[in-house]
């Protein structure tokens, strides 16, 4: 496009404002694209605007620069920038031709020090791991029926409501003591560490750290060395429910159990009362059944014993009688009448039984006893 210019009679070349601006704009367009570091101020973003605007400022309070970025691109970065944050902007100089204003057209924005943060975090993680703070052997089981649950959370956090609601739903008699604290920003780490210690002293037997999702920076306090050490040092088990499933702040590694969400944390710290009641009822049924069965076994054993007792004296008597009968039979067998029955005879001379021929002389009177009776006889 040609720059609009007219020429006066004396040869002066005159540009319109538009023409001038356009010329400068084109000239500026030849400058290279580069990275610029500065603090974000006066961030202006509205749904109906095509672009997002902010001013980039040197931290020492010096120079400023207007920045513009298409809103779609800006939103896609999901930076959640706040006033005063230091960023790196990749862009090039541009002239807002309508007003002849110089500004920077941003192509991308990066939070300054994200890489540095990550590296520091990685170093801290290595150091604490080397100390054994994340060791599996340190993990303690959660109490089955907590007496007092300590909840560390932000003062208006949805996370707090989530955890409380689910705890009470699952286990209405639960006792919860809430420590409201800063959960993001520079004051958060010390506040969280203190809250953990306080809850321990107040008698909590399990502690839940709850914070909803947030940006990497939002969750940084939960990776702070003070918080991680407070979690590791805590006298009672700690459940960490910080951020979403994909976030792993260092306090998650030091905690005894990690919950993916505040809701999951509630499930971990209290038993389900419905299930509990069912189990209790089943136990009682078992108790009744067991008691009945034990009593029945005793009764059966006693009945058997009684039967045996009733039979035993008769058996004993019969055995006695049998012995008596045997004795009697032998007695009978020994009596002479049995011998006489078989045809033997007893011969007497006077009172003496005759046992040899020499016991008698011819003419002696004898008495002969046979089975049926006696008769007299004389020796020839």
């Amino acid at each position, binding site marked *: 496009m040609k720059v609009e210019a007219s020429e006066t009679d004396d040869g002066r070349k005159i540009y319109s404002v538009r023409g001038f601006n356009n010329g400068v704009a084109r000239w500026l367009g030849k400058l290279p694209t580069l990275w610029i570091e500065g603090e974000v101020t006066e961030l202006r973003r509205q749904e109906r605007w095509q672009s997002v605007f902010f001013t980039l400022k040197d931290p020492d309070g010096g120079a400023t620069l207007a920045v513009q970025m298409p809103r779609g691109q800006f939103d896609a970065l999901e930076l959640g920038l706040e006033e005063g944050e230091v960023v790196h902007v990749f862009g090039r100089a541009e002239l807002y031709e309508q007003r002849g204003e110089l500004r920077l057209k941003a192509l991308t924005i990066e939070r300054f020090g994200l890489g540095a943060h990550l590296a520091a975090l990685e170093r801290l993680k290595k150091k604490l791991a080397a100390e054994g703070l994340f060791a599996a052997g340190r993990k303690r089981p959660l109490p089955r029926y907590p007496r007092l649950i300590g909840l560390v959370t932000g003062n208006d956090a949805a996370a707090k409501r989530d955890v409380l609601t689910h705890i009470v739903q699952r286990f209405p008699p639960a006792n919860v003591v809430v420590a409201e604290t800063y959960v993001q920003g520079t004051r958060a780490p010390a506040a969280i560490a203190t809250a953990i210690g306080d809850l321990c002293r107040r008698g909590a037997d399990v502690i839940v750290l709850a914070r909803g999702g947030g940006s990497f920076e939002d969750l940084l306090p939960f990776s702070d060395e003070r918080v991680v050490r407070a979690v590791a040092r805590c006298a009672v088990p700690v459940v960490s429910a910080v951020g979403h499933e994909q976030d792993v702040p260092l306090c998650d590694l030091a905690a005894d159990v990690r919950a993916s969400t505040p809701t999951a944390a509630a499930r971990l710290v209290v038993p389900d009362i419905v299930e509990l009641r069912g189990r209790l009822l089943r136990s009682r049924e078992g108790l009744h059944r067991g008691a009945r069965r034990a009593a029945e076994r*005793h009764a059966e054993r006693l009945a058997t014993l009684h039967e045996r007792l009733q039979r035993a004296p008769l058996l004993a008597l019969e055995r006695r009688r049998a012995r008596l009968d045997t004795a009697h039979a032998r007695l009978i067998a020994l009596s002479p009448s049995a011998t006489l029955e078989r045809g033997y005879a007893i011969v007497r001379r006077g009172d003496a039984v005759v046992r040899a021929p020499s016991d008698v002389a011819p003419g002696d009177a004898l008495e002969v006893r046979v089975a049926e009776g006696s008769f007299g006889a004389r020796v020839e």
Partner: protein
Amino acid sequence: MTPTFEEAQAELEQIVARLERGDVGVDELTTLWERGEELYRLCAAKLQGVQGKIEELSRSAQAADESG
């Protein structure tokens, strides 16, 4: 002092075993048998008491459930 259920049952078992072995004098037989019967009645009464108690507790527990 009345013996416990277990003591009474143990003595009863001994008596039955002796009677069954038959090493009991005829004169002693009646005495032992009577003692055995006495022990049996004692055990049976205790057992019935316990069974009654179990049923009663179970019924009252059920009643408490239904009313609660």
